[in-house]
């Protein structure tokens, strides 16, 4: 058993850490306040190859392994969660489905602009009435005269409405399977397709500079060949997409938790009460020690899940464990970081106030904590 990172993984971690520290963190407060999408940062990240990390060079990616990609997400999230979710949703949910399930033509056509960051891509699964019950979408697509006619709506979709969004891949019911259940197919809908309506951005509690919108499809027509991979494979495909996404979200949570510890530790060392820095009080030390311990454990769990993925072994339960533990760790870390800051932690000038707002959705997006527990229980044989 070897816990050390290899040369490339270390170099990617260090470069992302520097980039986050120098380019992202100084802008985080402003991005949160204005909610403006940071096009210049995303462009720079694209130039560095951060938006196509896990894809092979033949499709314009950097050819890094899955763990390197997750480590990069952790470091970017340490700078800002909104930037990290933009990168994560684009890579794990937008581009990855093309890479995993796309035909050769689809990969060649769609992946290069996504891997270079010229374009962002979204994945549309969640609906107003299909959240945790994602296997039951209301969106319907009917094949007529060589075209899919799509009707329905999607909710909380990341990266669909930026100026550089290329389109969205959506789940839609395309028929009934022999066992009576819905046949789900994933369809590729390029931006600009008539009937594909991108709604206004939501006003959000956190992740404010990321692009999140509702989408509507009104007799939206795409050619028959816009099926991702095979017809009827939608459910299987998105389960696999979500497994990978969960490891990346675990990494994002660890990055956010680490940022909470960084801030809390530095504040505790300089804030003086009763004649000494508050880091000298055991009440504060217990909090910091717990944060450090849980962060390390969460990090190890996402490393393990990523390692299993890279070995081609089953990792669904571990992905859920990593996502669940890391997001709950991050929530506790943010809570304690605010507590250590006292009244100042409630003020917007202090980053921990933003971290506290940013962290909540980590327990919801890409599968709620409750769904993660159900997945783990299923693997236990319940």
């Amino acid at each position, binding site marked *: 058993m070897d816990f050390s990172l290899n040369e490339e993984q270390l*170099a*990617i971690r260090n470069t992302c850490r*520097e980039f986050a520290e120098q380019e992202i963190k100084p802008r985080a407060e402003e991005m949160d306040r204005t909610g403006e999408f940071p096009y210049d940062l995303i462009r720079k990240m694209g130039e560095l*190859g951060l938006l196509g990390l896990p894809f092979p060079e033949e499709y314009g990616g*950097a050819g890094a392994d899955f763990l390197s990609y997750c480590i990069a997400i952790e470091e970017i999230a340490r700078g800002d969660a909104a930037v990290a979710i933009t990168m994560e949703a684009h890579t794990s949910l937008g581009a990855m489905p093309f890479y995993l399930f796309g035909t050769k033509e689809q990969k060649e056509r769609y992946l290069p602009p996504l891997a270079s960051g010229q374009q962002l891509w979204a994945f549309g699964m969640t609906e107003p009435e299909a959240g945790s019950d994602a296997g039951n979408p209301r969106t319907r697509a009917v094949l007529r005269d060589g075209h899919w006619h799509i009707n329905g709506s999607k909710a909380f979709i990341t990266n669909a409405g930026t100026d550089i969004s290329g389109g969205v891949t959506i789940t839609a019911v395309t028929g009934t399977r022999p066992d009576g259940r819905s046949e789900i197919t994933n369809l590729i809908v390029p931006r600009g397709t008539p009937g594909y309506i991108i709604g206004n951005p939501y006003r959000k509690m956190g992740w404010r500079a990321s692009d999140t919108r509702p989408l509507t499809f009104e007799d939206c027509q795409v050619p028959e060949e816009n099926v991702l991979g095979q017809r009827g494979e939608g459910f299987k495909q998105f389960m696999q997409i979500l497994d990978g996404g969960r490891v990346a979200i675990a990494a994002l949570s660890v990055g956010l938790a680490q940022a909470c510890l960084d801030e809390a530790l530095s504040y505790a060392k300089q804030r003086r009460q009763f004649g000494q820095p508050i880091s000298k009080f055991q009440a504060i030390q217990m909090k910091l020690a717990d944060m450090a311990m849980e962060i390390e454990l969460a990090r190890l769990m996402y490393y393990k899940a990523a390692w299993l993925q890279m070995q081609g072994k089953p990792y669904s339960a571990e992905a859920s464990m990593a996502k669940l533990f890391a997001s709950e760790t991050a929530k506790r870390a943010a809570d304690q970081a605010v507590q250590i800051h006292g009244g100042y932690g409630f003020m917007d000038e202090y980053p921990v106030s933003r971290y506290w707002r940013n962290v909540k959705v980590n327990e919801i997006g890409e599968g709620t904590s409750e769904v993660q527990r159900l997945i783990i229980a299923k693997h236990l044989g319940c």
Partner: protein
Amino acid sequence: MKIFVCVKQIPDPNTVESKLDPATKRLVRTGVSLVLDPGDETTIAAAIKLRDSLGNSELTAISMGPASAQEALRRALAMGVDRAILISDSALAGSDVLGTARTLAAALKRENPDLIFCSTESTDGYTGMVPGAIAEFLGLPQLTFAREINVEGTKAVIKRVTQTGYEVVESPLPAVVTIASGSFEAIYPTMKGIMSARKKPFSQLSLSDLGLDPSQVGEAGAREQVLSIGKAEARAAGQIIKDEGNAAEIIADFLQRHQLL
């Protein structure tokens, strides 16, 4: 064109508090995190920019140091340098300016370079003398404090930073050029660069490869001797000028005396 850039691995100036060993009177380099000199990163950026604008050119990073210095060279490769040379030999420990320049020059000479980039000075030792000594050993002209560099035919043309602006200086190639700090924007290694760094040519040379005698370098060959070390004087308090109608004049005089006006 064959372009070279001399680089150095140093204790991380961002995280390490520099300490001097009172016995050896040298910077403590053990037990601290080591990085490619941030000053060298901008010099590399300058060299990459020139290589890309010239086309059909190769950029090689060269360093003298212990085995750990290969990490600094890998970073240079990840930033976009094409190949790297590390000169490492236990006999090189304790080299002064003369020994360092002699070693680097010996390695450079074998390569017939057209242009050699150096930072004006390192961020740890700050002597600023190695580039000049390399030029001297190689019998090449030296262009210093460049904030811009171009190659025109068989000449190198630079904008040389002065106290009031810049002067345009040119020299025939081959030449050694030092880059003024802060003149070029630092670049990050790209992800593709990191992934391909290990596949790029990397050679390691010892003293015998260079035909140098151990007595000429390292502790044995050092002509420099640090006699004593001491604390830098604390910064003196600023001067407060009370405005009695002539404050502007006093300030202008002060600025002029310090050649800031």
